[in-house]
């Protein structure tokens, strides 16, 4: 199978899973913005995304994407280290046009995974997971109260800081990942190179700002001012 057996095939796996994850983040970011305006509307969305078959199926699909992306990132990185060999240059001079992110995609990815685990613990474990195991009482009651968990999470300034660092890592990963994914699929060229870079940087910056805004907003006023007093 060329997707797994050739270098370009493996890159296509990275690219397609990466693009799918960007689309997911776009949805997730938009959904979060609702929390800035209305507790009820936000919780309605949370309820729809509870332990319904379609939401569980989507979660499994999403998990598979992350696992595929991570596993192939690992395989590619190992192969690339072997291809580079054991000897290292005594002097290196990184050319100006080589972006820092492009050389640190794996490290950034590992930070993203660690952040993801924390995030799943903060939200998914308290929400969908509780419904799946059929929790009762208070846990059951709070399982669909996403708004509560946002308040809870960002009430802790340390956690807010960790989330913001996490968002920054994703931003770095995607400033390179966005155009890299299109380049890998061959949808690039001398003219489109600069266009994709600009489009990518604008898109990714807006995307990550959506997350940052929600985090800062809840950290600053704990959601109390959600009716528009600040």
């Amino acid at each position, binding site marked *: 199978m060329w997707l797994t057996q050739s*270098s370009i095939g493996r890159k296509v796996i990275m690219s397609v899973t990466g693009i799918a994850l960007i689309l997911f983040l776009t949805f997730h970011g938009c959904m979060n913005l609702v929390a800035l305006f209305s507790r009820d509307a936000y919780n309605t969305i949370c309820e729809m995304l509870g332990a319904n078959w379609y939401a569980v199926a989507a979660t499994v699909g999403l998990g598979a994407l992350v696992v595929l992306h991570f596993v192939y990132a690992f395989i590619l990185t190992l192969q690339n280290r072997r*291809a580079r060999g054991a000897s290292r240059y005594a002097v290196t001079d990184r050319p100006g046009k080589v972006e820092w992110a492009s*050389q640190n995609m794996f490290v950034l990815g590992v930070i993203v995974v660690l952040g993801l685990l924390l995030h799943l613990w903060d939200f998914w474990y308290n929400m969908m997971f509780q419904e799946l195991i059929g929790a009762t009482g208070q846990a059951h009651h709070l399982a669909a109260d996403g708004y509560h968990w946002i308040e809870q999470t960002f009430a802790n300034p340390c956690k807010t800081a960790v989330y913001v660092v996490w968002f920054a890592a994703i931003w770095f990963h995607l400033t390179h990942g966005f155009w890299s994914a299109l*380049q890998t699929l*061959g*949808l*690039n060229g001398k003219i489109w190179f600069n266009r994709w870079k600009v489009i990518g940087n604008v898109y990714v910056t807006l995307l990550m700002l959506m997350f940052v805004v929600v985090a800062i907003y809840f950290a600053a006023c704990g959601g109390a001012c959600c009716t528009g007093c600040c």
Partner: protein
Amino acid sequence: MAKNISFTIKYWKQNGPKDKGHFEQREMKNIPDDTSFLEMLDILNEELINDGKEPFVFDHDCREGICGMCSLYINGTPHGKTATGATTCQLYMRRFNDGDVITVEPWRSAAFPVIKDCMVDRSAFDKIQAAGGYVTVRTGQPQDANAILIPKQDADEAMDCATCIGCGACVAACKNGSAMLYVSSKVSQFALLPQGRPEAAKRAKAMVAKMDELGFGNCTNTRACEAVCPKNESIANIARLNREFIKAKLAD
């Protein structure tokens, strides 16, 4: 105005691929700055021979920037740093200053084992080329030049790709040891021309398969290759190779 400079040269010595290798060092005095880098190394070797020492081994042939044999990693950049890109043989000592320490290393990449000192074995590139980097012509005389009309733009672009001299600087610069800039330039020089189209799919598949088999890495689009290529090959070629390869595989 020509002037003379004095500097320290640190050069890599290694007896074959298994040897650990080490740097040796020498003070170079009063070298005219119009000397080419390779002429400077010739002077170094004269001095070493006169001292009864073993000369420093490096690759070179045409010394006019067209053969792709020269290959030195100079002060952290393949072929040394120049404004618009040049081969090592086209690098001149006026790029350096009095008192500099100039470090010379071989291409360091698993697919290019060291033969001796800074001479590395780049026959992997020949193998990739032999896997499909040509147009099969089985019949008689060359065609009349106007028999197939080709837009000037396409001809120019194909020519730009064909100027890749197979020096391997792209691999040397790549943290992934990837040969994609080289292979994509060689695939592009044919893919852009009508004469190359009939075998385009076959060529892309065969050359990529050989590249993978020889242990070159997977491209992650860092663009280090493009930054150091003496012939200014563009990663647009890599996008084209990806396109050709994916199309060919999907059509199978």
